[in-house]
């Protein structure tokens, strides 16, 4: 059968098959792993190579200066740079999750490089102790590092994004540890990093707060090497007597034990997925140990580097990169020699079908019931393949089987094709990211795209994000910024064209962010041109301000209708410019001007006056002064009757003069004049009556107060002084007399002369005061019959009211009066009869 060749490459360990397809023959030349320090990023990331300065090596035709080189996983050089950093020997080198290369040197300085071998400033130091004691060992995990000093102290950077070093608790032991392993913060109970330290024949657990000794029988004696599995649940230990042990992380129970018969610890110890452990000594074959059964040996004649991944180990040698993984179950079921699983039969059926053999149908009939699972297995197996032609065959088998399945989720094949297309694209040796499908799922597409963008594979990133239906904004934005940085020689207009052409691909992209980047790169003009295209004013305006385009900023802010933005610009200009220039800028723009006035009215009175004066709005200044005069009055120092009235009146006078400057404000001018006069009179009144009750009351109130106090002459004086009309005078006096209940004076007043507004005020005053008798004096004098009727009604005289109403011949009024007297049956019938008579007359 055709499948035999596939399974022939597998090794059996205990009951599991392993395979190690070659991912790439490496394209680099003359790289010898044994001469170099090498850091490989997981998830098929880049490889950093630098000559190892802890080893004595022979220099061939190369510079004595060391070079840091960064390759893709396929060995294509991405970038290089000369290593000139001070601080002593390079101790540790590793990639972070966001693909920054961390290099830690002896004195505790941390250098960071991006994938383009550019140093990321600033450098961070691990602290004074590290500087004094020297770093001897570093243990990295995805996003942090633990360093050991010669003095046995442990330092930690828990998060490379924050870069804040901290010291862990001191172990108190005299010797340096034999080995260390780190449990990542995300797997510990406390949420802080924990370090397993093998010192002497003990294992300690060290974290920020303290040290614990591991109790238990499992591990006894000295430990030479430890590695934690990638899910943080298991620990592989190489003991002093040459045994390899696997326990769970709490040292409970031994899951694997194998005697390697080597007193020396392996140089590299790595987990292969979660199923087996790899041990590497540089002079013996690579050893793979599983839970049971005989270990597997792999023979190499080159130095190796083991790169643990979540589902296997990548094996890097000088010439090739391989991926050692446990063969997935679906693949086993298809390709295992002699397999009769439905999936294997389906695969076989396709083979027959291709050869036009009728056995295809026979196979299908055999597996009719389990066809869906066979299809599923083929799809799954295709996903795990690195070989494109085999992917294709498996998918064809799946598709062939699917045609005979009625109830299969049809988009599964399509989905897998999509995923595989992405994977194959990034696995291309030029790109060099050999992700397995499991790694891809763990990494997520968005991180993959970020990595591609970071490596300046913008086009591929754009295509992938389009293909998997993700927002392309990240890609285009990064491209635009990189383009600006890289195109110093292209003139602004041309570059703008190039940028706009791509930026328009993505709706809602932030032009302002690109413009800000241009500005940072010293291309202010380009920034100004770019920001013009930003639709979001809230992003556009601040940037315009920062590149000094105040006028445009003010215009755009006003257009947006967002007052907060206008204020932003206003305050900016206000601070930066001379007052007159500032006034000039806002004067012709209604919204900014009004906002300024409204703000200044509350907090910058004097400045506002300057503004009005400079723009010739004298009446506004006058209003401000007038308002100030009141504030003087409210001042607690200005107790009534004190000379402080002087300044108040002066302010009002000033206001009056300003009003008088313009023709349109004669009314205001007159009012201000009267106000000043009133204050003077009120002041005099307070002095003469020795009662502080006049100032700040109105003219009418002043008159009433005078009358209530019995000071009729003063009241008269105020009346003539302000030319109070007779009408108003009568209302005021009548009400004032009624307040004092001086009915006699009221009657006298009514007889002085015929009141200009009739006797209604008198009636109202009496009725309101509930003086029926007094009211009756005036009601008959009311000229209007309707008024008379209602007045009678108000004091409850139904009969008189009815008479008056019938005289007025007002049926509607009668009806209303009837309602008023509803309770009174006699009165009510009276109104009815009167109304009947009225309507009869009407007919």
């Amino acid at each position: 059968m055709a499948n035999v060749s596939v399974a022939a490459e597998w090794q059996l360990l205990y009951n599991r098959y392993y395979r190690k397809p070659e991912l790439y023959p490496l394209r680099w030349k003359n790289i010898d792993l044994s001469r170099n320090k090498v850091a490989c990023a997981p998830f098929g990331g880049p490889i950093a190579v630098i000559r190892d300065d802890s080893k004595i090596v022979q220099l061939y035709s190369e510079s004595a200066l060391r070079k840091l080189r960064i390759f893709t996983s396929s060995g294509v050089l991405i970038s290089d740079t000369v290593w000139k950093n001070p601080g002593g020997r390079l101790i540790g080198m590793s990639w972070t999750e966001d693909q920054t290369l961390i290099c830690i040197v002896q004195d505790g300085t941390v250098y960071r490089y991006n994938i383009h071998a550019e140093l990321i400033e600033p450098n961070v130091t691990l602290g004074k102790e590290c500087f004094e004691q020297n770093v001897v060992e570093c243990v990295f995990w995805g996003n942090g590092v633990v360093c050991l000093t010669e003095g046995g102290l442990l330092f930690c950077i828990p998060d490379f994004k924050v870069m804040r070093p901290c010291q862990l608790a001191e172990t108190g032991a005299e010797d340096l540890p034999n080995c260390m392993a780190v449990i990542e913060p995300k797997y510990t109970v406390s949420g802080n990093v924990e370090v397993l330290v093998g010192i002497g024949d003990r294992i300690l657990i060290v974290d920020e707060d303290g040290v614990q000794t591991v109790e238990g029988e499992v591990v006894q004696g000295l430990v030479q090497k430890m590695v934690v599995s990638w899910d943080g649940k298991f620990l592989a230990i190489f003991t002093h007597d040459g045994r390899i042990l696997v326990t769970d992380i709490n040292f409970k129970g031994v899951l694997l034990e194998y005697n390697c018969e080597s007193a020396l610890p392996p140089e590299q110890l790595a987990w292969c997925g979660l199923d087996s452990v790899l041990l590497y000594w540089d002079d013996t074959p690579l050893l793979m140990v599983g839970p049971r059964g005989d270990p597997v040996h792999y023979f190499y004649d080159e130095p190796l580097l083991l790169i643990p991944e979540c589902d296997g180990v990548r094996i890097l040698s000088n010439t090739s990169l391989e991926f050692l993984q446990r063969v997935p179950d679906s693949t086993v079921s298809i390709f295992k020699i002699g397999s009769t699983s439905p999936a294997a039969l389906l695969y076989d059926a396709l083979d027959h079908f291709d050869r036009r053999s009728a056995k295809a149908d026979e196979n299908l009939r055999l597996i009719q019931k389990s066809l869906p699972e066979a299809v599923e297995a083929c799809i799954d197996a295709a996903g795990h393949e690195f070989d494109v032609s085999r992917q294709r065959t498996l998918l064809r088998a799946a598709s062939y089987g699917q045609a005979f399945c009625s109830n299969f989720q049809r988009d599964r094949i399509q989905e897998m094709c999509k995923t595989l297309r992405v994977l194959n694209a990034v696995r291309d040796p030029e790109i060099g990211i050999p992700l397995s499908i499991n790694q891809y799922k763990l990494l997520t597409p968005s991180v993959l795209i970020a990595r591609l963008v970071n490596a300046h594979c913008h086009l591929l990133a754009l295509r992938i994000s389009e293909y998997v239906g993700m927002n392309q904004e990240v890609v285009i934005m990064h491209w635009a910024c990189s383009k600006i940085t890289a195109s110093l020689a292209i003139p602004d207009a041309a570059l703008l064209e190039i940028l706009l052409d791509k930026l328009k691909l993505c709706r809602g992209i932030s032009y302002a962010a690109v413009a800000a980047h241009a500005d940072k790169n010293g291309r202010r003009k380009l920034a100004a041109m770019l920001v013009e295209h930003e639709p979001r004013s809230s992003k556009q305006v601040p940037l315009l301000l920062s590149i000094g385009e105040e006028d445009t900023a003010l215009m755009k802010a006003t257009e947006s209708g967002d007052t907060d933005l206008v204020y932003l610009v206003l305050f900016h200009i206000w601070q930066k410019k001379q007052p007159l220039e500032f006034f000039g800028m806002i004067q012709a723009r209604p919204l900014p001007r009004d906002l300024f006035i409204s703000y200044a009215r509350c907090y910058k009175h004097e400045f506002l006056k300057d503004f009005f004066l400079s723009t010739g709005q004298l009446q506004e200044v006058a209003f401000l002064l007038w308002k100030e005069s009141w504030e003087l009055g409210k001042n607690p120092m200005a107790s009534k009757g004190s000379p402080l009235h002087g300044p108040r009146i002066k302010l009002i006078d000033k206001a009056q003069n300003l009003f008088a400057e313009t023709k349109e404000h004669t009314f205001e001018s007159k009012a201000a004049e009267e106000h000043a006069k009133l204050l003077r009179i009120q002041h005099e009144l307070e002095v003469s009556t020795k009662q502080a009750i006049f100032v700040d009351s109105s003219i009418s109130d002043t008159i009433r107060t005078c009358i209530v106090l019995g000071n009729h002459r003063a009241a008269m004086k105020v009346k003539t002084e302000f030319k109070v009309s007779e009408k108003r005078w009568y209302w005021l006096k009548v009400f004032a007399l009624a307040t004092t209940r001086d009915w006699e004076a009221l009657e006298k007043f009514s007889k002085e002369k015929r009141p200009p507004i009739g006797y209604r005020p008198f009636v109202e005053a009496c009725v309101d005061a509930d003086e029926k008798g007094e009211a009756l004096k005036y009601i008959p004098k009311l000229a209007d019959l309707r008024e008379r009727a209602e007045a009678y009604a108000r004091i409850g005289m139904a009969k008189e009211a009815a008479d008056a109403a019938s005289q007025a011949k007002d049926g509607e009024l009668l009806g209303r009066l009837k309602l008023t007297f509803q309770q009174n049956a006699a009165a009510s019938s009276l109104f009815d009869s009167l109304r009947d008579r009225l309507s009869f007359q009407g007919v």
Partner: protein
Amino acid sequence: MAQIPNLDNSPLNLKSLREQSQRDLVKILKDIRGKKCLVIEPKLGGTLSLIIQTSLLKEYGIELRHLSAESVQTDCSKVVYLVPSQRDLMKSISSHVHDDISKGLQREYYIYFVPRREIQCERILEEEKVHHLITIGEYPLYVVPLDEDILSFELDLAYKQCQVDGDTGSLWHIAKAIHKLESTFGAIPNVRAKGKASVMVADILDRMHTEEPMNSSDMALSEINTLILIDREASLPFLCTNSYYNLKLCAACLQVDMITPMCSQLTYEGLIDEFLRINNGSVELDSSIMGVQQEGKKMKVPLNSSDKLLKEIRDLNFEVVVQVLKQKATSMKQDYAEITTANQSVSELKDFVKKLNSLPEMTRHINLAQHLSTFTSKPSFLAKLDMEHTIIEASSYDICLEYIEEMIHKQEPLINVLRLLILFSVTNSGLPKKNFDYLRRELLHSYGFEHMATLNNLEKVGWLKKQESKSNWLTVKRALQLIVEDTDTANPNDIAYVFSGYAPLSIRLVHNAVLSGWRPMEEILKLLPGPHTETKRAGFTSSPSFATLQGASNGLDKIADGRRSLVLVVFVGGVTFAEIAALRFLSAREGMAYDLIIGTTKIVSGHSLVETIFERFG
């Protein structure tokens, strides 16, 4: 009964809106660890009572205080201010901080601005040198559901700020609020606006759409079919503040509708607001009025649609309300009599008990109505109503003038005088210079010169001004049939019942806009101030909902799933209860194929509108 309205029957899922606001607030409070003192600006506190129960807040370890000039007395080391972004509040807060510093108290300060932080406020904090001591955050509360068909943007001062100060921040706020609604309920395909401020809101809304484009899938989901923006803030004052030249240009126009809110509302809810003031959906009363014998104690009566009886009578003319209540009481009495005499089956008993459940509601409203009638039966009230109608009918100028003059002479409450005066001035498109100056002088003499500022504001907004051209009120009145003779308040057939004979102009406009858009009434719209616009959003031109709208003018609605389409009517500058009543009346009428939701900057009355314009020198 809770003050938080029950929103179950709303045509939109307003409940989710409110729950979001609740969650936002709780999150803010939870994120500040430990015990804290929450200082709320009193008005905002009222608004929040529509969102969340204060007792709930206390669960998060909170001491509750109201913001005032006095410093905060608390043992908590964390003080959280929850305030609207208003400049004047910043001074109090900074003085609190200074006060604490001088006492040597060390506290952590937080300010959460509602709905967003603003630079002008932070600037004042900077000038007071406290900005660095304070952590600043936002509580994005743009919309509050007042009832199942009313949304409020809670902008008390919108009108004044816009018209007097030229500060159009509130317009941005409204646009933002509508935009937020759209992000929940889908983009609104049709937008119609009348009046300068409304058109500005529509413009800003358009800008927001270009700035943050919505997915086309969202567009398809639009639950709200049409947005109508109507404007109290007429264009007139806008231009006035700019220059005299502009004033002349548009003096001929009326404000879109300043008339309606100046008239006394005659619906039940409207009257309650006029006399007793409704705040955040409840009215505060002496408990003695409600028949609870506790001397001098105030009690809050919630007014929202959770109250079944209120829902029935709130929009009726008050005359009718009294009769309805009487009827109900009588029928209940009858039922009671029957139950005591005859033998009843169990199911009949059950029915009776069910009816009994409505008894507390009955007593509540009978008490309220009784209290109201003490106001409405006063001759002065009737005289005022008479005068309002005389002014609206514009029949006799001199009688009105004399009446107002007399009110001033008698020194009646200034707001009452101004309401009539504004009505008078607006219908006449200003007063002749002689009368204008005379009345202003009499006002200053009677009420004091400090009211110069108020008069100045009134002139700025165009409510009280010099006549410069002939009024076109009569034309408008006739064209829109604003005066309806013989309105039957008990069985109304026109919205005019809410003012016993006057149909609110604003609602006539809305009615036409809903039915047929602006086009058929271009001529009339030109008589009213401010531009009008009508937009159909891109991507909708061929959508079925548009076709429905066209078809709807025939009184038919063809939305497939049987739902009625929804119109959001936004009143920029506030709406009165009477207008709401009129709108509800419209939407309940036969042949009306729309549900209406009302959005407003605030529920106003003539009283509260005039109050915002008030500004004394002192």
